[in-house]
């Protein structure tokens, strides 16, 4: 493979250990100013736009994204740029469409929102189960990345690296990683951006880019070499089918809007206006990381092609480490490893927090009332056991670390995006519609994700023959299905008196007006705002048309 390091990588170990100590100190200092559980998760709604922007970057930038984008360029080449920017723009649509209403409602998870808005325990239970699935998929990629980092640091094979690195991270998260979540995430986000920007500048410069100071625009002089090695690098944009692009739209853009730990960042800002500005600053940096990883992937392809090095797909996730080591040296490799650990720790902490609180609070707490003492014991216990389970699942990970993040985002898009958009903007969306929509979207996404992981993609010869592109995105089926099922089931059940009588209409109607910022005196019982059926019907028909287009 052309890249071998022998023995432990001492500069990397020192950097990573130093970084973990800094995380613990940050967590400890943040813990001292934490008074209530609300402060604990959301920093007391007191975070300025700059700090929130880095916390947002940290939520987005998982370890799988940090190293996986660079690797994924092997699979889809220039199409990676479409995928990653759709991911970023999804955040923007979330800011515009429902960040304010969610912030006013005061919930900071998708499950919390669904329970409050639809007043249904069954809907909450379903959303918690799907949320746990999503976070497990998310965390598997991070564990794979952590294993790669410890492989390099300690010069050991994948399996022992997985268990050593995985246990260190799980123990850190269980006993300290959750303190001062927002502050630590901001610090980790900052670390990730710097640990990506500087090494990529150095790599691009070493490869001979004409304008390395702006590394994402400055390697145009190298494209002819790239086209010699990979003639279809750019033209693949024109060979991908429209179904691939629609798959990206529904899977990536709709997915980013609703991923549980992304959504929670809406709540930590001082005001809605500051929260929105923080998000936009975060978007600038997320976009920067996207184009930097693309530049790093570009450099990786050129390097391996020009040197005649064959790299196995399963090892492509190490490409950023390899480039840093070969073209720059110890300091760059140490920085990239530190950035990878920062990205992995923040994401695993976020994922385990969602899984742990979901099991302890929403599932066990829903069956029987728990005392504060029991909750304090149960939460870290469930987090630790979940962490161990994720380590075992990662023994046999997907080829590319990014793959299971993509599955998680598709599942989130299929389960949560329709309830979020329709629930915020349409009073007619009810618990029957949301349960049916979540089940339809979620089960279709899980089924197609399982098929997506398999080369045959699907059981149906018709679907198997359809041009879904180099890497099919099953959201093309499941997201439109969740929308039209939610809309039409809600419309039908609103017209069945025995079912409609079980919906606390007055409460939820007032809640929607409140979520949109209307003061009490401007909310009438018979207000017609947000209640028309025509708009949702049009959306339902459009989504049905998209679904049929995807299937046929």
């Amino acid at each position, binding site marked *: 493979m052309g890249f071998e390091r022998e023995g432990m990588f001492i500069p990397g170990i020192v950097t990573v250990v130093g970084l973990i100590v800094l995380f613990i100190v940050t967590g400890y200092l943040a813990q001292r100013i934490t008074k209530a559980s609300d402060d604990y998760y959301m920093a007391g709604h007191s975070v300025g736009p700059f700090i929130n922007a880095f916390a947002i970057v940290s939520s987005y930038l998982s370890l799988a994204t940090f190293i996986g984008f660079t690797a994924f360029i092997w699979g889809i080449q*220039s199409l990676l*740029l*479409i995928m990653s*920017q*759709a991911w*970023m*723009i*999804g955040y*923007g*649509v979330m*800011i*515009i*469409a429902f960040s*304010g209403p969610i912030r006013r409602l005061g919930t900071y998870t998708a499950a919390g929102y669904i329970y409050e808005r639809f007043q249904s325990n069954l809907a909450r239970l379903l959303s918690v189960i799907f949320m746990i699935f999503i976070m497990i998929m998310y965390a598997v990629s991070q564990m794979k990345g952590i294993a790669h980092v410890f492989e390099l640091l300690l010069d050991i094979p994948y399996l022992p690296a997985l268990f050593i690195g995985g246990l260190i991270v799980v123990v850190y998260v269980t006993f300290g990683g959750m303190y001062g979540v927002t502050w630590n995430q901001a610090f980790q986000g900052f670390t990730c951006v710097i640990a990506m920007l500087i090494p990529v500048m150095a790599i691009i410069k070493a490869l001979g880019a*004409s304008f390395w100071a702006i590394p*994402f*625009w400055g*390697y*145009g*002089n*190298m*494209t*002819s070499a790239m086209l010699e090695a990979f003639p279809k690098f*750019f*033209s693949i*944009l*024109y060979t991908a089918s*429209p179904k691939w*692009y*629609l798959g*990206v*739209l529904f899977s990536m*853009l709709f997915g980013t809007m609703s991923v549980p730990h992304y959504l929670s960042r809406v709540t930590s800002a001082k005001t*809605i*206006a500051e929260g*929105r*500005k923080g998000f*936009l600053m975060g*978007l*600038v940096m997320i*976009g920067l990381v*996207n*184009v930097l990883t693309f530049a790093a992937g570009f450099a990786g392809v050129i390097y391996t092609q020009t040197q005649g090095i064959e790299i196995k797909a399963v090892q492509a996730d190490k490409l950023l480490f390899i480039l840093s080591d070969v073209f720059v040296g110890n300091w760059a490799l140490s920085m990239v490893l530190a950035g990878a650990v920062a990205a992995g720790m923040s994401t695993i902490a976020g994922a385990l927090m969602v899984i742990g609180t979901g099991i302890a609070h929403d599932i066990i707490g829903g069956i029987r009332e728990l005392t504060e003492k029991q909750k304090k014991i149960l939460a870290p216990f469930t987090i630790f056991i979940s962490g161990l389970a994720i380590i075992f699942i990662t023994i046999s990970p997907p080829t590319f670390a990014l793959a299971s993040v993509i599955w998680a985002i598709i599942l989130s898009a299929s389960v949560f995006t329709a309830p979020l958009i329709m629930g915020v*903007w349409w009073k007619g969306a009810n618990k029957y519609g949301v349960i049916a929509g979540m089940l339809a979207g979620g089960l279709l996404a899980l089924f197609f994700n399982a098929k997506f992981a398999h080369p045959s993609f699907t059981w149906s010869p018709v679907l198997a023959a359809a041009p879904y592109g180099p890497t099919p995105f099953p959201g093309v089926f499941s997201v439109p299905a969740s929308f039209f099922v939610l809309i039409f089931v809600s419309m039908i059940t609103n017209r069945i008196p025995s079912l409609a009588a079980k919906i606390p209409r007055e409460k939820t109607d007032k809640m929607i007006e409140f979520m*949109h*910022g*209307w*003061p009490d*005196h*401007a*909310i*009438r019982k018979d*207000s*017609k*705002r*947000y209640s028309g059926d025509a708009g949702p019907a049009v959306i339902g028909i459009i989504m049905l048309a998209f679904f049929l287009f995807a299937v046929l």
Partner: protein
Amino acid sequence: MAEINRGATEANDRIYKKELFVVVASSVICMLVAMGMLFMLAFPGLLDVYIWGYPFPFWYQVTIAYPGVILFMFWIILILTKIDNQKANAERET
């Protein structure tokens, strides 16, 4: 039953319709920008238009679909913040 202040209701409904229009239109525009390449499929000649070493679709992705769309969103959130202020000062309807 409390009397309805029709003038206030109409004024508030105007704010609501403006908000709905801004959110729907801007969300759709953002989605179209993200899918800009899909619309370029009809123009394969763009792949041969090279600027400073890169084909046009690359530039589209790293300019319009990155800082361009973020600037657009910034403009939209300024409008949404104004609409939020109008809602906070909405007149009493009854």
